[in-house]
């Protein structure tokens, strides 16, 4: 095998599938630039799936009252939208966020009905040739199963609900595939190391690296000569005689890892240290609640369903106008009252929560929460 082939094999084997932790705020940034739920992509999907024009007309009719008025008052945007399909997508997302700001709604039902409609209105009025073109050409490339059409024809709400369920299953699935970040590795120094005596040449010491915290997979690297023999004993009963074993723990917890190094003349050194094996924290937050006293979802406990969280740093809940509804550094429970002790009106509220997980890693999450009145 030549050198280049060797380099290719080596680097792609080790790096092509590598994963790195991604902070939550990146998604928040992306989300803020995407069209509203059920927005433009839905319109594109409708075209792609070859739904006939009347669906667009219907949607347009539904929202003329809301989105239509806004669009008419903003001629510049309307013109931008009627370019080619690709650039409209990005323009739409700008428009969607403008629309969002203008109406001051945070993915409320009103906003959901406005957005697809407004896209359709624009296409109908400004650039009908393009629209019909897209519909015609897409008829040919329909690869959709009937259920897809159903989902769309049945209206946005049913489609959203069914995907909602899927995504929860999905979340569990993906949970297992997320890997620990290198960054968190650096931020989480190893457990304190007791210095081994340095009087003898033979040394037994090692450092541990969490290869994949999510799957409890760890790697142990000795700081000693490799011509000695190594025996590793882990307090879950596992024994290894490799130089650098890789071990997957079956459960979270505190473990002891012992290394015994024996050189060729039979001198043995022993070293043991404790390591904390925990999955990274995970914030799971409900998306709706109904304050009151009927005993069902009366308060939101932002940490109730979360995993491996050591403590709260801060929690902030804002209403759609940006007014602070709740702010705390000690309690992650909001009873739905505003700072004046009144139950806040029904609607969508934004939260920003910061916590520290069991491994000492700081985590943040932002999202929306629907408040229903009993």
């Amino acid at each position, binding site marked *: 095998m030549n050198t280049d082939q060797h380099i290719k094999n080596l680097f792609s084997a080790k790096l092509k599938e590598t994963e790195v932790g991604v902070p939550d705020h990146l998604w928040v940034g992306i989300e803020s630039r*995407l069209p509203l739920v059920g927005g433009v992509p839905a319109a594109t999907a409708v075209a792609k799936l070859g739904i006939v024009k009347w669906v667009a007309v219907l949607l347009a009719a539904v929202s003329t009252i809301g989105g239509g008025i806004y669009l008419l008052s903003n001629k510049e945007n309307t013109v931008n939208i009627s370019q080619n399909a690709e650039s409209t997508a990005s323009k739409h997302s700008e428009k969607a966020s403008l629309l969002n700001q203008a109406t001051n709604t945070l993915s409320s039902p009103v906003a959901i009905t406005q957005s697809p409609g407004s896209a359709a209105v624009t296409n109908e009025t400004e650039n009908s040739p393009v629209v019909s073109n897209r519909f015609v050409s897409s008829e040919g490339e329909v690869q959709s199963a009937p259920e897809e059409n159903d989902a769309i024809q049945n209206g946005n709400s049913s489609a959203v609900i069914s995907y909602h369920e899927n995504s929860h299953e999905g979340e569990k699935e993906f949970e297992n595939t997320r890997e620990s970040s290198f960054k968190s590795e650096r931020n989480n120094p190893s457990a304190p190391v007791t210095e081994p005596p340095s009087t003898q040449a033979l040394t037994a010491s090692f450092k541990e690296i969490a290869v994949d915290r999510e799957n409890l997979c760890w790697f142990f690297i000795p700081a000693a000569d490799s011509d000695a023999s190594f025996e590793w004993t882990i307090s879950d009963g596992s024994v290894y005689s490799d130089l650098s074993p890789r071990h997957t723990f079956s459960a979270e917890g505190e473990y002891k890892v012992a290394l015994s190094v024996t050189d060729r003349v039979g001198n043995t050194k022993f070293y043991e240290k404790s390591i904390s094996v925990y999955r990274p924290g995970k914030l799971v937050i409900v998306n709706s609640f109904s304050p009151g006293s009927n005993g069902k979802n009366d308060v939101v406990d932002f940490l109730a369903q979360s995993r491996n969280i050591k403590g709260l740093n801060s929690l902030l809940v804002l209403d759609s106008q940006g007014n602070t509804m709740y702010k705390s550094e000690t309690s992650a429970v909001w009873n739905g009252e505003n700072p004046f002790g009144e139950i806040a009106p029904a609607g969508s509220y934004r939260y920003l929560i910061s916590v520290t997980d069991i491994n000492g890693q700081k985590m943040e999450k932002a999202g929306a929460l629907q408040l229903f009145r009993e």
Partner: protein
Amino acid sequence: MTDIELVKGCLSGNREVQKALFDCYAGKMMAVCLRYTENREEAEDVLQEGFIKVFEKIYQWEGSGSLGGWIRTIMINTALTFLRSRKKTNGHTDLDYAEELNAGEISALDRLSAEELMELIDRMPPGYKSVFNLFAIEGYGHKEIAEMMGISESTSKTQYLKAKGWLKKALENIEKDVGEYRSTY
């Protein structure tokens, strides 16, 4: 969720599915972005740009190839566009020698963990980092790389040779570091 389900949900503009797709691929794509850019901030910018393109263009996905591969291509192109737009002016140190790596050095590379290799690439000068990434990790040929980056094929080959020269040098330093690390015990 399967790729098809993810794409269907994204086409309907479902936020939860978009998030699921992001969660599924962001970790791997972040690793890709980190390899092309110079620091974490740049990588995060490229990642965000790239995912926005993914959501905008998801209807273009053919359904024949893997979704991950398609997203990766978008991510790489976004990174290359970003690097071109940045027009890095601080000249990288040009290496005179472009020696081939010897067997000992290859096996030294082999002993490095994924994390260590990642850090190594992180430190590689921007001049040859992209070419090295595209050639050694993504598996593109010099002709394809030349097209993607808007450079000539011979430039791509030269940059790759320089990258190898740089690796050789870096490996010497690593051996020294490891020696020091071990001697501290």
